[in-house]
């Protein structure tokens, strides 16, 4: 997958941004509020159009990728339909895609098993906890077997314990489905724990300040969170966010610096 990406425009929300993501990567975008990380994700997903610059997904434009249903999206709010059961919510994208009934039901079950909500098929969203609702949203995003999973602060509204549990779960799902993930977050530990690369952004206009390669071994477990390397990487990302580049870094800087 080729993924060069340049954004910019009259408001200069994003500037001088270029990034290539390999298939199967897990890339996090991290930065202060207003740095345009969500905007960038929305441009990739073709929810908004940049005034200049372009996105390429598997050789296609963002729009074509969206029309081909290459994207699975998870937002900060689960955005479940309260009139649909868990099962029917996960089925929604497959209904839109006119997937054959048998295949559809099989895939819905599979995705719900994947997020371990097998016992809640007939529950309505309001009967689930926030963490469970977000797992339904993930199952729904994965149901269309996306080439690229876009996650916009999916666990931002959850408590720390639930968030850590879901992080482990996301990694398991990522390993099982081999999908490529772009993950927007505010949380440094979350970004380091999940990613193969962390892209650090700064605000006004949004630009990349550092790209940190996360060389923690896979599979990552609760022990990973206590390893020395993990703390080093957390420190490096934190210092990049402050504007200092960590000198222990072996990150290859691929983003262009300030363009203006």
């Amino acid at each position, binding site marked *: 997958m080729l993924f060069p990406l340049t954004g910019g425009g009259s408001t200069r929300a994003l500037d001088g941004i270029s990034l290539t993501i390999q298939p199967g990567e897990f890339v996090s975008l991290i930065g202060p509020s207003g740095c345009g990380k969500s905007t960038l994700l929305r441009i990739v*997903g073709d*929810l908004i159009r940049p005034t200049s610059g372009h996105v390429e997904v598997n050789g296609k434009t963002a729009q074509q990728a*969206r*029309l*081909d*249903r290459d*994207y*699975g*999206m998870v*937002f900060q*709010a689960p*955005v479940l*339909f*309260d*009139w*649909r*059961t868990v099962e029917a919510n996960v089925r*929604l*994208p497959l*209904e*839109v*895609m006119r997937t054959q009934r048998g295949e559809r039901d099989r895939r819905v079950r599979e995705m719900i098993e994947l997020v371990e909500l097998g016992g809640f098929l007939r529950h*309505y*969203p*309001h*009967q689930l906890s926030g963490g469970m609702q977000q797992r339904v949203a993930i199952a729904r995003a994965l149901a*269309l077997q996306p080439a690229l999973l876009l996650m916009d602060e999916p666990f931002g509204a959850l408590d720390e314990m639930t968030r850590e549990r879901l992080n482990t779960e996301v990694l398991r799902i990522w390993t099982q489905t081999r999908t490529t993930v772009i993950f927007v977050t505010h949380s440094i530990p979350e970004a380091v724990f999940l990613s193969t690369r962390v892209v650090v952004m700064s605000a006004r206009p949004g630009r990349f300040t550092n790209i940190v390669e996360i060389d923690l071994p896979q599979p990552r477990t609760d022990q990973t969170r206590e390893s020395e390397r993990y703390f080093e990487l957390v420190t490096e990302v934190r210092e990049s966010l402050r504007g200092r580049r960590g000198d222990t870094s072996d990150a290859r800087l691929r983003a262009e610096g300030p363009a203006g």
Partner: protein
Amino acid sequence: MTAAVHRSSQTTGSTVVNWLSRYGPPAIVFLGVIVIWELVAAGSGRRVIPPPSAIADALLANADMLRRSTLATFYEAVGGLVIGTAAGVAVAFGSARWVTARALLLPVGIAASAVPIIALAPILNNWFGVLNPLSKMMMAALLVFFPVMINVTRGLVEVQPASLELMRSYAAGEVDVLRKVRIPNMLPFFFTALKIGTTLSFIGALVGEYFGGTSEVLGRIVLTAMSGGRFDLAWAGILIGSIAAIVAYLVVSLVERMVLRGRFGARTE
């Protein structure tokens, strides 16, 4: 295990308690009013406000005529409800689909619902024929139209922006967005409007009747009874009209409950 058994027995117990605490007090108030009414009206105010027992007598003595009149009025009200709802829903879909239509129609609709539309009753009687039940239906329909149109439009338009983005990410067409997001989102709004409309349709039908028409309808029964000094019969007519409206309202509520089945938890909690 024991905890589960204990809890289930507690819920059956508490259902009865819940039911009593919900319907008990209003029932007691209602019965109290009837008793006090009976006692007070037995004295001097006998003619203008007859005691409940006299109304019950009038009801039984004129049962056959009242039954026919109630059915006639019910027919007008429900006919008006159907016409007004159908028109309101149709216009709402149009105004939800086309922004220009919405910009034109919604302010008019909101302004019109503040106008005493009842004032049109004599004109509608004249237009659609004073003896034709359609003239009463149209009065009812006109009252029903505006709340249905306004609410259904809101239900179709006021959709979570994120759910539209979600559908966009699926490359969903406009028809899918309508069927899977807008219409389900609109249904609670629709039923709220339909319940308001049910009450309004009876008001519309009765007011239409007051301005003339066939004699065996509730509005005429009440009027002629009053002018003949038969307050007991007038009250019987009012009572039975109220009951008819309440029955229609309960039917709508029941349908609402069935259609919005799974969502009820979310809305009452």
